[in-house]
């Protein structure tokens, strides 16, 4: 038996994407299984861990607390839209250099939250970074290197005024 279905028309990382799905499908599963973008990680599925955070019309939200049907007519950005292996986003470059990740499970969500955060706070204090980081769980780093990575990214982005925040 299959439930009610709808067609979702959305834009993911700048590309139109359309798929007919069950209305009960979560946005996180839609992004991973329908769009094949597995950079968005699924941790707790109740909004606590932050691993599945994406940008919806530029604002960070938990994709596990959205229905896929709610993505219709909206812009989605995932970690795949940030940079490429050859051309990392300043945040990604800084996380690499400052050891801001170990297993990497929580990293995509943190990157998406911090992208929006740095766009609004280009020169944040470490206290401000920690307050925002409280919405993301990391079991490897102890958070210190993540804070340093975000500070490093902010400095890097200040030196490159043309970089897309």
């Amino acid at each position: 038996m299959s439930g009610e279905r709808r067609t979702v028309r959305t834009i993911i990382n700048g590309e139109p994407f359309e798929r007919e799905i069950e209305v009960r499908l979560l946005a996180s599963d839609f992004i991973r299984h329908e769009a094949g973008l597995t950079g968005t990680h699924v941790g707790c599925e109740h909004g606590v861990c932050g691993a599945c955070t994406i940008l919806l019309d530029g604002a960070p939200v938990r994709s596990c607390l959205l229905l896929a049907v709610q993505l219709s007519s909206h812009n989605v950005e995932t970690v795949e839209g940030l940079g490429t292996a050859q051309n990392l986003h300043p945040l990604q470059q800084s996380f690499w250099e400052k050891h801001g990740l170990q297993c990497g499970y929580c990293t995509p969500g943190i990157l998406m939250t911090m992208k929006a955060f740095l766009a609004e706070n280009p020169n944040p204090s470490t206290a401000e970074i920690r307050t925002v980081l409280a919405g993301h769980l990391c079991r490897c780093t102890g958070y210190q290197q993540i804070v340093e990575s975000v500070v490093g990214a902010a400095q890097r982005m200040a030196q490159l005024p043309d970089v897309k925040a």
Partner: protein
Amino acid sequence: MKPAQFAYRDPVTVVEALNLLAEYGEDARLLAGGQSLVPMLNFRLVQPAVIIDLNGIEELCNIQVAGDRFRIGSMARQASVESHRDIIRGWPLLVDALRHVAHPPIRNRGTIGGSLAHNDPAAELPAVMVALGTRMILQSAREQRTVPAEFFFVSPLETALAPDELLVAIEAPVPNPSAGWGFAEISRRHGDFALAAAAVQLIPGETGRAPGARIVVTGVAERPLRVSEAENILCEGAWSAARDKAIRAAVETAVEPFEDLHAPGWYRQQAAGVMAARACQDALMRGADLAARHD
């Protein structure tokens, strides 16, 4: 960890939503920001036959200052209320409390009305609504009615809303700009639910009326608890160590704290007293500062 099957309806007007509610009643759940309901769907704690998604109803998103009243539509996102110029100026207590509500990615999606209608007993917003003397505007296909915040929050996850009613907006008089306020919270991490929190709004005396205060604690009872005994003590005069102690004692007597893995009852009880005293002291200091600026 995946929602059970449901039928999905996405009305674009309030009238449409009310007709759907009248049709489906208790078989339906309203989906606002989804930051509480979707976890419950994922865990299958709730399995409604119908989801009525309110996110397409633009008329519910308005934030207005009309004359001497504020009106916030129930679907206004918490993040947009928190950054709204008129709200920052007129309702600083609400803005300060919102910064304790979870984290930015949750507030980007979470709505004012969703949090109030969900009524978690450790949530910040219900307490703030009582402290601000807010009125809830409820609408059904039958009627529109207004319920003061003090009578809206009934018990954990229960409100005065009938199965066919929708919380469309909250409304309150713009507070006197020199009215002091305070908010204090203790939680395990920033953004967690409160182990105990207190919201205080002073009401400056007007002609023929004595000054008053609303002191409301949350996380320590079945619903946001207004502590009138503490309000009387606060209104007696200037801050002192004795008054601080008396307010803490009044709050400790009034609360009915519960116990869970985060904190024992006695801890919550004491913390509620301390939070209330801190919020009272902040309110008095701010009130004095603001009054001096307006003179």
